[in-house]
């Protein structure tokens, strides 16, 4: 018997090839991994927002009590205020710096580029310490700001230092992709330089500017390290989390603030998503690269500009370096190397430094593999939209999450007695996993962008040639994306060296990290020693980055002969 025969032929279900099956299985597996390292830990803390201190479900009671506290609005307003001001300062500053690096002829351009990266290598403690040395009540330029450094001014200056390289990196990329033909056209039409700038340069970098603004905004909103050291009485949402969780062990309230904190960051990243989607179309146009020609007046101006900015960065770094050599600030300014003998100040001494290096290397290796393979699976799997959407969402989540929230979530999730993964707890492994999760978003985005730039038909060709996808991944996709893969690894290493807020809950007796030790040492009053440890971290990361650049130029250059025409 046939049921009412449809006049349409039945919908076709295409059998999956072994490749398709493998890819989908991979995506599912990857989604499970992300769920385990991001989703579930976060949920296990954020769920507490709906419980009282004894774990009873109380619905929205915590939200009601939090929102009825006037302090919230102060903190929220302060957070928005400081984030807005930082964004308004950092983005133009970074834009002109990036403009100078890409569109003008600078002497020692590589040096200016290198200096702009330095803040990425530094723990967020470093600018705080340096600013106290510079503008504190005993500082070299005390009173120069017309008020105390502690509070709004301090946060803004430290955040500018801290966020500047991130914005610069994004904007350099945005300005590098410019099409020289547009400028030739504008020149031919006799447009004035100012008009060219506003009609060609700015619109061309529009997406980069939006991205940079969102990144800076989110970083400032979620960071508590700077606000804690130099924020004074200036309450922000991130310090509110600190007060609830560390000060009062009130996880429910901490979770509530954590949720509130997610909102602006999540909105920022939704906007970014929309913008990024449009940008892909923009990049597909075949552009002719722009090579700046020397022009004396402009080049002099931008050299001066970059010198001032680079000097600012170097003064902060130099101040920390000098501070690390001082015997007893400010009453005994004689110099000593004793502050570098960390064993005298922290039982784990130099061990914590080597732990950090081990952890950072682990995060770089494990994280890069996971991020690249994961992004590849998610980009190259056919259809399967729902699962891929879930993966994309999970990969975006970490950027919006303050480290304290993620770290506590890790305790609740990974330490649960019935979690089969609880053997990981209190090992180096969990620090690696946590760091990878904490910095997941940027690595995932880098990998995805790199994958989007290669021809989508490679997989089709491979299928027609009956070559399994994993073979094409190994022989073609991964080698082509090698620069992006190395970038991700360096990013993870550098962040692994400086991360504090999340791992502070997770280290055990033999896995203490240098970045955490620096915070502990600073708290115990040994400012110079904390500065010394920060400097050692900066040097390590800078050395690794230099190695990367050298390897890129001399070693990989040979392996990548195919890139040359």
């Amino acid at each position: 018997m046939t049921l009412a025969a449809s006049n349409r032929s039945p919908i076709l279900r295409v059998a999956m090839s072994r490749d398709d099956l493998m890819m989908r299985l991979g995506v599912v597996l990857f989604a499970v991994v992300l769920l385990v390292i991001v989703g579930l830990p976060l949920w296990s803390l954020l769920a507490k927002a709906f419980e009282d201190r004894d774990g009873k479900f109380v619905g929205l009671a915590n939200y009601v009590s939090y929102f009825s506290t006037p302090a919230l609005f102060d903190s929220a307003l302060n957070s928005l205020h400081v984030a807005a001001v930082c964004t308004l300062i950092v983005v133009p500053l970074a834009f002109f710096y990036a403009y100078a690096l890409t569109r003008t002829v600078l002497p020692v351009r590589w040096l200016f580029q290198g200096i702009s990266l330095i803040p990425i290598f530094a723990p967020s403690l470093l600018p705080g310490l340096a600013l106290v040395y510079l503008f504190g009540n005993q500082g070299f330029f005390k009173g120069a700001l017309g008020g105390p450094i502690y509070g709004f001014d301090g946060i803004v200056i430290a955040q500018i230092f801290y966020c500047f390289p991130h914005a610069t990196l994004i904007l350099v990329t945005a300005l590098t992709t410019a099409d020289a033909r547009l400028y030739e056209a504008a020149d031919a039409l006799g447009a004035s330089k100012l008009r060219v700038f506003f009609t060609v340069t700015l619109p061309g970098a529009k997406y980069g500017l939006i991205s940079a603004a969102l990144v800076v905004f989110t970083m400032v909103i979620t960071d508590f390290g700077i606000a804690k050291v130099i924020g004074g009485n200036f309450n922000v949402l991130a310090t509110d989390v600190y007060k609830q969780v560390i000060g009062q062990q009130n996880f429910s309230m901490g979770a509530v603030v954590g949720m509130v904190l997610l909102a602006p960051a999540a909105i920022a990243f939704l906007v970014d998503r929309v913008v990024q989607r449009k940008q892909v179309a923009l990049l597909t146009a075949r552009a002719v690269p722009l090579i700046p020609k020397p022009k004396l007046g402009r080049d002099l101006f931008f050299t001066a500009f970059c010198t001032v900015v680079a000097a600012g960065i170097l003064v902060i770094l130099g101040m920390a370096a000098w501070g690390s050599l001082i015997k007893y600030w400010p009453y005994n300014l004689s110099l000593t190397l004793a502050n570098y003998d960390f064993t005298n100040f922290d039982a784990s001494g130099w061990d914590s430094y080597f732990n950090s290096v081990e952890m950072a290397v682990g995060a770089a290796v494990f994280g890069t593999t996971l991020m690249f393979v994961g992004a590849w699976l998610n980009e190259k799997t056919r259809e399967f939209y729902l699962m891929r959407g879930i993966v994309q969402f999970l990969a975006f989540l970490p950027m919006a999450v303050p480290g304290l929230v993620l770290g506590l979530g890790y305790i609740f999730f990974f330490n649960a007695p019935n979690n089969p993964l609880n053997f990981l707890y209190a090992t180096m492994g969990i620090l690696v996993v946590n760091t990878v999760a904490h910095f997941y978003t940027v690595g995932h985005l880098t990998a995805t962008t790199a994958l989007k730039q290669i021809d989508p038909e490679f997989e089709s060709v491979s299928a027609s040639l009956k070559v399994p996808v994993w073979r094409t991944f190994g022989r073609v996709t991964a080698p082509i994306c090698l620069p992006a893969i190395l970038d991700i690894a360096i990013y993870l290493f550098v962040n692994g060296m400086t991360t504090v807020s999340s791992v502070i809950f997770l280290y055990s007796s033999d896995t203490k990290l240098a970045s955490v030790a620096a915070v502990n040492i600073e708290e115990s009053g040994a400012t110079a020693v904390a500065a010394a440890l920060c400097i050692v971290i900066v040097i390590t990361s800078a050395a690794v980055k230099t190695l990367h650049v050298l390897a890129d130029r001399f070693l990989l250059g040979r392996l990548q002969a195919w890139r040359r025409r």
Partner: protein
Amino acid sequence: MTIFATMRRAAVLGGVALAAIAISGAAFAQKTKLTVYTAIENEQLDPFKKAFEADNPTIEIAWVRDSTGVMTAKLIAEKDNPRADVIWGLAASSVGLMAGMGMIEPYTPANAAALKPIFKSGKSPETWVGMDAFLAVVCFNTAEAKKGNKPTPTSWADLIKPEYKDSIVMPNPASSGTGYLTIAGWLTIMGEEAGWKFMDALHQNVSQYLHSGSAPCVQAAKGERLIGIGFDMRGATEKTKGAPIDLIVPKEGLGWEMEATAIVKGTKNLDAAKKLADWASSPKANELYGKYYAIVANPTVKSMPPNYPADGEKLMAKVDVDWMAKNRERILAEWTKRYDGKSAPKAK
């Protein structure tokens, strides 16, 4: 030397190394590893560990150390699957909180009877036993005082005088346990009404509420501030390092807190944990505490670490620890409403 000879040598060396690892591993295996959570100062970790292990060669201490707030948060978050065997050197109020949550294994250590009564939980068997007490003192920078021609304060009442405007820092009680014990001390000594009135006045002179109990004396020591109200021991060690500060115990009395020892319920090494609890309350241990703190649990141990204020113990406020714990949320809410919310504009 031929390649083969080299290889043979390498193999022999490798074998020796392996054997060495195996032997040391075996020696290791005989020791019980105790995971001890603590908030004692970094420089105390090594001496404490060595002293205990010298008397208990079969036990090895593995420290996990961070600030009081972080360690307390970590312990409570790990409640369902405790990782620590023993808590040795964490604020008694934190340990009391955990005892109330059923996280502590009650045990009266061998030497508990000899200790001063306030250094014990008062339960039978004891949930925790105190080690030493620390005070929220006034750290006064004499060098900066000379420059600014400021008089030395001797009482809390002095601190609300207008000449100290914007020159005082103290810990934010919402972020720091030391901050809370400081204001709980004032409320006890002066009574609630007068206490809040005092804080209203003091607020005019406070330039900043910091997120840590150590920071105020550190900032005073470095001349960042004239006066820091905070953790005494930090002030004393800074002074020993050469800071021009005096530690002043205000004559009205002051808030204080103990560091305590307790066994974590669910430990797999209960016997070893008990040995540590016994040792931690012994006279020998108290002498060790006495190297760093002026006030220790054992009344027979006379201690006076360098640069410590002399008469602190006499002036310790009669603080009711239970009252402190029960009223914490209310007091913090009140404090936050009065000072934290509106302190922001002042920073600018």
